[in-house]
Protein backbone atom coordinates (compact mmCIF):
# COMPACT_ATOMS: atom_id res chain seq x y z
CA UNK A 1 0.00 0.00 0.00
CA UNK A 2 1.37 3.38 -0.98
CA UNK A 3 1.94 5.84 1.79
CA UNK A 4 3.19 9.32 1.11
CA UNK A 5 6.11 10.45 3.18
CA UNK A 6 4.63 13.45 4.90
CA UNK A 7 5.66 15.68 7.75
CA UNK A 8 3.57 15.30 10.88
CA UNK A 9 3.54 16.93 14.28
CA UNK A 10 4.56 14.50 17.02
CA UNK A 11 3.98 15.13 20.71
CA UNK A 12 6.87 14.56 23.11
CA UNK A 13 5.38 12.04 25.54
CA UNK A 14 8.41 11.57 27.76
CA UNK A 15 12.16 12.13 27.90
CA UNK A 16 14.51 9.76 29.63
CA UNK A 17 18.19 10.17 30.37
CA UNK A 18 20.11 7.11 29.14
CA UNK A 19 23.65 8.31 29.86
CA UNK A 20 25.19 11.69 30.68
CA UNK A 21 25.29 12.38 26.92
CA UNK A 22 22.22 10.62 25.54
CA UNK A 23 18.49 11.00 25.98
CA UNK A 24 15.61 8.97 24.68
CA UNK A 25 12.59 10.90 23.41
CA UNK A 26 9.30 9.04 23.26
CA UNK A 27 7.16 10.61 20.56
CA UNK A 28 3.42 10.03 20.08
CA UNK A 29 2.57 10.10 16.39
CA UNK A 30 -0.87 11.08 15.09
CA UNK A 31 -0.17 9.06 11.96
CA UNK A 32 1.92 6.14 13.18
CA UNK A 33 3.08 3.45 10.72
CA UNK A 34 4.87 0.26 11.77
CA UNK A 35 8.54 0.67 10.89
CA UNK A 36 11.16 -1.86 9.85
CA UNK A 37 13.94 -2.07 12.47
CA UNK A 38 16.90 0.00 11.22
CA UNK A 39 14.78 2.76 9.70
CA UNK A 40 14.94 6.38 10.78
CA UNK A 41 12.84 9.52 11.05
CA UNK A 42 13.79 12.97 9.86
CA UNK A 43 13.35 15.70 12.46
CA UNK A 44 12.85 19.29 11.30
CA UNK A 45 13.16 22.39 13.46
CA UNK A 46 11.85 25.73 12.26
CA UNK A 47 12.90 29.03 13.82
CA UNK A 48 10.45 31.96 14.08
CA UNK A 49 12.22 33.61 11.11
CA UNK A 50 11.62 30.54 8.95
CA UNK A 51 15.15 29.10 9.15
CA UNK A 52 15.03 25.31 9.15
CA UNK A 53 17.41 22.57 10.29
CA UNK A 54 16.79 18.94 9.50
CA UNK A 55 18.53 15.78 10.79
CA UNK A 56 17.94 12.04 10.74
CA UNK A 57 17.48 9.95 13.91
CA UNK A 58 17.19 6.18 13.98
CA UNK A 59 14.23 4.53 15.62
CA UNK A 60 15.28 2.77 18.84
CA UNK A 61 11.99 1.08 19.66
CA UNK A 62 10.50 -2.08 18.20
CA UNK A 63 7.61 -1.88 15.70
CA UNK A 64 5.48 -4.03 18.01
CA UNK A 65 5.00 -0.89 20.13
CA UNK A 66 2.19 0.96 18.39
CA UNK A 67 1.38 4.65 18.18
CA UNK A 68 4.74 5.88 19.40
CA UNK A 69 8.48 5.66 18.74
CA UNK A 70 11.64 6.17 20.73
CA UNK A 71 14.53 8.19 19.34
CA UNK A 72 17.83 8.20 21.24
CA UNK A 73 19.89 11.31 20.68
CA UNK A 74 23.50 11.95 21.62
CA UNK A 75 24.36 15.52 22.50
CA UNK A 76 27.22 16.94 20.47
CA UNK A 77 29.03 20.05 21.64
CA UNK A 78 27.81 22.88 19.36
CA UNK A 79 25.36 20.43 17.81
CA UNK A 80 22.56 22.54 16.42
CA UNK A 81 19.76 20.00 16.47
CA UNK A 82 21.01 17.58 19.14
CA UNK A 83 21.47 20.47 21.60
CA UNK A 84 17.96 21.69 20.97
CA UNK A 85 16.57 18.21 21.54
CA UNK A 86 18.59 17.91 24.77
CA UNK A 87 18.40 21.38 26.29
CA UNK A 88 15.16 22.90 25.06
CA UNK A 89 12.65 20.16 24.39
CA UNK A 90 10.37 19.13 27.30
CA UNK A 91 7.51 16.63 27.55
CA UNK A 92 4.33 18.06 26.07
CA UNK A 93 6.22 19.93 23.32
CA UNK A 94 5.46 19.31 19.68
CA UNK A 95 8.01 18.51 17.04
CA UNK A 96 7.92 18.02 13.26
CA UNK A 97 8.97 14.59 11.96
CA UNK A 98 8.61 12.39 8.89
CA UNK A 99 9.11 8.67 8.59
CA UNK A 100 9.72 5.82 8.81
CA UNK A 101 12.43 6.21 6.15
CA UNK A 102 14.82 3.75 4.47
CA UNK A 103 14.70 0.20 3.19
CA UNK A 104 18.35 -0.77 2.93
CA UNK A 105 19.73 -0.87 6.48
CA UNK A 106 16.84 -2.94 7.86
CA UNK A 107 16.39 -6.30 9.48
CA UNK A 108 13.26 -8.06 10.53
CA UNK A 109 12.72 -11.51 12.00
CA UNK A 110 11.49 -12.93 8.68
CA UNK A 111 14.94 -12.26 7.16
CA UNK A 112 16.56 -14.78 9.52
CA UNK A 113 20.24 -14.83 10.40
CA UNK A 114 22.75 -15.38 11.79
CA UNK A 115 23.17 -11.74 12.66
CA UNK A 116 26.31 -9.79 13.40
CA UNK A 117 25.59 -6.33 14.77
CA UNK A 118 28.46 -3.89 15.26
CA UNK A 119 27.93 -0.58 17.04
CA UNK A 120 30.04 2.36 18.03
CA UNK A 121 28.56 4.85 20.53
CA UNK A 122 25.09 6.02 19.54
CA UNK A 123 25.33 3.69 16.53
CA UNK A 124 23.71 1.13 18.82
CA UNK A 125 20.34 2.88 18.35
CA UNK A 126 19.04 1.21 15.14
CA UNK A 127 20.58 -2.11 16.24
CA UNK A 128 18.62 -1.82 19.50
CA UNK A 129 15.43 -1.64 17.46
CA UNK A 130 16.53 -4.89 15.77
CA UNK A 131 17.24 -6.75 19.02
CA UNK A 132 14.08 -5.44 20.69
CA UNK A 133 12.08 -6.58 17.67
CA UNK A 134 13.92 -9.93 17.66
CA UNK A 135 12.78 -10.44 21.24
CA UNK A 136 9.21 -9.20 20.71
CA UNK A 137 8.83 -11.47 17.67
CA UNK A 138 10.17 -14.46 19.61
CA UNK A 139 13.00 -14.94 17.10
CA UNK A 140 15.96 -17.04 18.20
CA UNK A 141 18.43 -16.44 15.34
CA UNK A 142 22.00 -16.45 16.62
CA UNK A 143 22.88 -12.79 17.13
CA UNK A 144 26.15 -11.24 18.24
CA UNK A 145 26.19 -7.57 19.14
CA UNK A 146 29.69 -6.09 19.32
CA UNK A 147 29.35 -2.71 21.02
CA UNK A 148 32.18 -0.23 21.42
CA UNK A 149 32.01 2.52 24.06
CA UNK A 150 34.57 4.87 25.51
CA UNK A 151 33.80 4.09 29.16
CA UNK A 152 31.19 2.12 31.14
CA UNK A 153 29.29 5.40 31.71
CA UNK A 154 28.83 5.74 27.95
CA UNK A 155 26.95 2.48 27.48
CA UNK A 156 23.42 3.17 26.27
CA UNK A 157 20.68 0.67 27.23
CA UNK A 158 23.14 -1.16 29.54
CA UNK A 159 20.53 -2.76 31.83
CA UNK A 160 18.21 -3.76 29.02
CA UNK A 161 21.02 -5.31 27.00
CA UNK A 162 22.00 -7.29 30.06
CA UNK A 163 18.42 -8.56 30.46
CA UNK A 164 18.03 -9.38 26.77
CA UNK A 165 21.20 -11.43 26.87
CA UNK A 166 20.15 -13.16 30.10
CA UNK A 167 16.98 -14.38 28.38
CA UNK A 168 19.22 -17.01 26.79
CA UNK A 169 17.54 -16.98 23.39
CA UNK A 170 20.68 -16.73 21.31
CA UNK A 171 21.69 -13.10 21.77
CA UNK A 172 25.25 -12.42 22.87
CA UNK A 173 26.45 -8.92 23.73
CA UNK A 174 30.19 -8.41 23.45
CA UNK A 175 31.52 -5.07 24.65
CA UNK A 176 34.75 -3.21 24.17
CA UNK A 177 35.80 -0.14 26.16
CA UNK A 178 38.31 2.11 24.45
CA UNK A 179 39.20 4.58 27.23
CA UNK A 180 38.24 3.23 30.64
CA UNK A 181 37.10 -0.24 31.62
CA UNK A 182 34.92 -1.52 34.49
CA UNK A 183 36.85 -2.86 37.51
CA UNK A 184 38.29 -6.35 36.91
CA UNK A 185 37.34 -6.19 33.24
CA UNK A 186 38.73 -9.09 31.24
CA UNK A 187 37.04 -8.31 27.93
CA UNK A 188 38.14 -6.15 25.02
CA UNK A 189 39.76 -2.82 25.84
CA UNK A 190 40.61 -1.39 22.43
CA UNK A 191 39.06 -0.05 19.28
CA UNK A 192 37.26 -2.50 17.02
CA UNK A 193 39.80 -4.19 14.73
CA UNK A 194 40.00 -7.12 12.33
CA UNK A 195 41.20 -9.58 14.98
CA UNK A 196 38.30 -8.71 17.30
CA UNK A 197 35.82 -8.92 14.45
CA UNK A 198 36.98 -12.34 13.38
CA UNK A 199 36.73 -13.65 16.96
CA UNK A 200 33.20 -12.30 17.29
CA UNK A 201 32.10 -13.31 13.79
CA UNK A 202 33.70 -16.77 13.54
CA UNK A 203 31.04 -18.70 15.52
CA UNK A 204 28.35 -17.27 13.22
CA UNK A 205 29.93 -18.64 10.04
CA UNK A 206 30.19 -17.20 6.53
CA UNK A 207 26.44 -16.84 6.09
CA UNK A 208 26.14 -14.11 8.71
CA UNK A 209 24.47 -10.85 7.77
CA UNK A 210 26.31 -7.87 9.23
CA UNK A 211 24.98 -4.44 10.19
CA UNK A 212 27.50 -1.81 11.25
CA UNK A 213 26.47 1.56 12.65
CA UNK A 214 28.21 4.47 14.30
CA UNK A 215 30.56 7.35 13.59
CA UNK A 216 31.82 7.27 10.00
CA UNK A 217 35.44 6.38 10.74
CA UNK A 218 34.47 3.51 13.04
CA UNK A 219 32.10 2.15 10.40
CA UNK A 220 34.89 2.32 7.80
CA UNK A 221 37.28 0.43 10.04
CA UNK A 222 34.73 -2.21 11.00
CA UNK A 223 33.58 -2.78 7.41
CA UNK A 224 37.19 -3.19 6.22
CA UNK A 225 37.90 -5.47 9.18
CA UNK A 226 34.95 -7.72 8.40
CA UNK A 227 36.01 -8.11 4.78
CA UNK A 228 39.48 -8.96 6.05
CA UNK A 229 37.88 -11.48 8.42
CA UNK A 230 36.37 -13.17 5.37
CA UNK A 231 32.80 -11.88 5.19
CA UNK A 232 31.55 -11.10 1.66
CA UNK A 233 31.02 -7.33 1.12
CA UNK A 234 27.42 -7.90 0.00
CA UNK A 235 26.64 -9.32 3.45
CA UNK A 236 27.75 -6.11 5.13
CA UNK A 237 25.41 -3.14 5.47
CA UNK A 238 26.48 0.12 6.98
CA UNK A 239 24.87 3.19 8.50
CA UNK A 240 27.30 6.07 8.95
CA UNK A 241 26.17 8.72 11.41
CA UNK A 242 28.75 11.35 10.48
CA UNK A 243 32.02 12.74 11.88
CA UNK A 244 33.33 10.69 14.73
CA UNK A 245 34.58 13.21 17.26
CA UNK A 246 36.10 10.04 18.75
CA UNK A 247 32.73 8.90 20.03
CA UNK A 248 33.82 5.33 20.50
Amino acid sequence: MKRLLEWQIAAVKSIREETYRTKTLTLSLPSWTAHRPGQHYDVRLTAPDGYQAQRSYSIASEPERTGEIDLTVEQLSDGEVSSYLHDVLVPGDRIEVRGPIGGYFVWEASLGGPLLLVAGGSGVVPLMSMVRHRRAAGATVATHLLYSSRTPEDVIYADELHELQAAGDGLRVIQTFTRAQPPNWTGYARRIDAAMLSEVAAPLGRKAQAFICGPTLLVEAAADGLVEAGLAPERIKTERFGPSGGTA
Partner: protein
Amino acid sequence: MEEPMDRVHENMLDGNAAAGILDEIFGGEMTASPTECEHCGREGELGSLLTFTQAPGLVLRCPACSEVMLRVVQTPDYTYLDVRGAVYLRLARR
Protein backbone atom coordinates in the same frame (compact mmCIF):
# COMPACT_ATOMS: atom_id res chain seq x y z
CA MET B 1 33.90 21.48 -8.18
CA GLU B 2 33.67 19.07 -5.27
CA GLU B 3 36.36 18.66 -2.70
CA PRO B 4 38.65 15.71 -3.28
CA MET B 5 37.17 12.66 -1.62
CA ASP B 6 39.72 12.05 1.11
CA ARG B 7 39.21 15.50 2.62
CA VAL B 8 35.53 14.94 3.20
CA HIS B 9 35.80 11.34 4.23
CA GLU B 10 34.76 11.91 7.82
CA ASN B 11 31.53 13.52 6.71
CA MET B 12 30.66 10.70 4.39
CA LEU B 13 27.30 9.02 4.99
CA ASP B 14 25.45 6.15 3.31
CA GLY B 15 22.69 6.14 0.77
CA ASN B 16 20.33 5.71 3.75
CA ALA B 17 21.02 9.30 4.69
CA ALA B 18 19.51 10.35 1.34
CA ALA B 19 16.46 8.09 1.75
CA GLY B 20 14.15 10.92 2.82
CA ILE B 21 14.96 13.24 -0.06
CA LEU B 22 14.88 10.42 -2.64
CA ASP B 23 11.48 9.31 -1.32
CA GLU B 24 10.32 12.91 -1.63
CA ILE B 25 11.54 13.13 -5.26
CA PHE B 26 10.44 9.73 -6.52
CA GLY B 27 7.37 9.22 -4.34
CA GLY B 28 8.55 6.01 -2.73
CA GLU B 29 11.34 4.19 -0.93
CA MET B 30 14.39 4.08 -3.21
CA THR B 31 17.37 2.93 -1.13
CA ALA B 32 16.73 -0.81 -1.53
CA SER B 33 16.45 -0.30 -5.29
CA PRO B 34 19.42 -1.22 -7.54
CA THR B 35 21.43 1.11 -9.75
CA GLU B 36 24.56 0.82 -11.90
CA CYS B 37 27.63 3.04 -11.93
CA GLU B 38 28.19 4.59 -15.33
CA HIS B 39 31.95 4.76 -14.75
CA CYS B 40 32.90 1.32 -13.45
CA GLY B 41 29.77 -0.81 -13.89
CA ARG B 42 29.28 -1.64 -10.21
CA GLU B 43 25.71 -2.60 -9.41
CA GLY B 44 24.21 -2.21 -5.97
CA GLU B 45 21.38 -0.70 -3.98
CA LEU B 46 21.14 3.07 -3.72
CA GLY B 47 21.55 2.59 0.03
CA SER B 48 25.06 1.26 -0.53
CA LEU B 49 26.31 4.44 -2.23
CA LEU B 50 28.33 7.05 -0.35
CA THR B 51 26.49 10.25 0.44
CA PHE B 52 27.94 13.70 0.91
CA THR B 53 25.52 16.20 2.34
CA GLN B 54 27.97 19.04 2.84
CA ALA B 55 28.63 19.57 -0.85
CA PRO B 56 26.37 22.17 -2.42
CA GLY B 57 23.27 19.99 -2.51
CA LEU B 58 23.51 16.27 -2.08
CA VAL B 59 26.04 14.05 -3.85
CA LEU B 60 25.98 10.25 -4.08
CA ARG B 61 29.17 8.51 -5.15
CA CYS B 62 30.03 4.98 -6.19
CA PRO B 63 31.71 3.06 -3.31
CA ALA B 64 33.91 1.17 -5.79
CA CYS B 65 35.34 3.96 -7.99
CA SER B 66 34.28 7.10 -6.00
CA GLU B 67 32.82 8.79 -9.08
CA VAL B 68 29.69 10.91 -8.75
CA MET B 69 26.53 8.98 -9.64
CA LEU B 70 23.73 11.28 -8.50
CA ARG B 71 23.46 14.91 -7.57
CA VAL B 72 20.46 16.70 -6.08
CA VAL B 73 20.14 20.43 -5.63
CA GLN B 74 17.00 22.01 -4.22
CA THR B 75 15.82 25.60 -4.44
CA PRO B 76 12.65 26.85 -2.77
CA ASP B 77 10.63 26.03 -5.87
CA TYR B 78 12.50 23.29 -7.74
CA THR B 79 14.55 20.15 -7.40
CA TYR B 80 17.44 19.70 -9.85
CA LEU B 81 18.50 16.13 -10.39
CA ASP B 82 21.69 15.12 -12.22
CA VAL B 83 21.91 11.34 -12.75
CA ARG B 84 24.58 11.29 -15.46
CA GLY B 85 26.71 8.93 -13.40
CA ALA B 86 24.02 6.24 -13.15
CA VAL B 87 23.20 3.90 -16.04
CA TYR B 88 19.70 3.41 -14.63
CA LEU B 89 17.47 3.89 -11.60
CA ARG B 90 14.67 1.47 -10.87
CA LEU B 91 11.31 2.69 -9.63
CA ALA B 92 8.43 0.53 -8.47
CA ARG B 93 5.34 0.94 -10.66
CA ARG B 94 2.15 1.91 -8.94
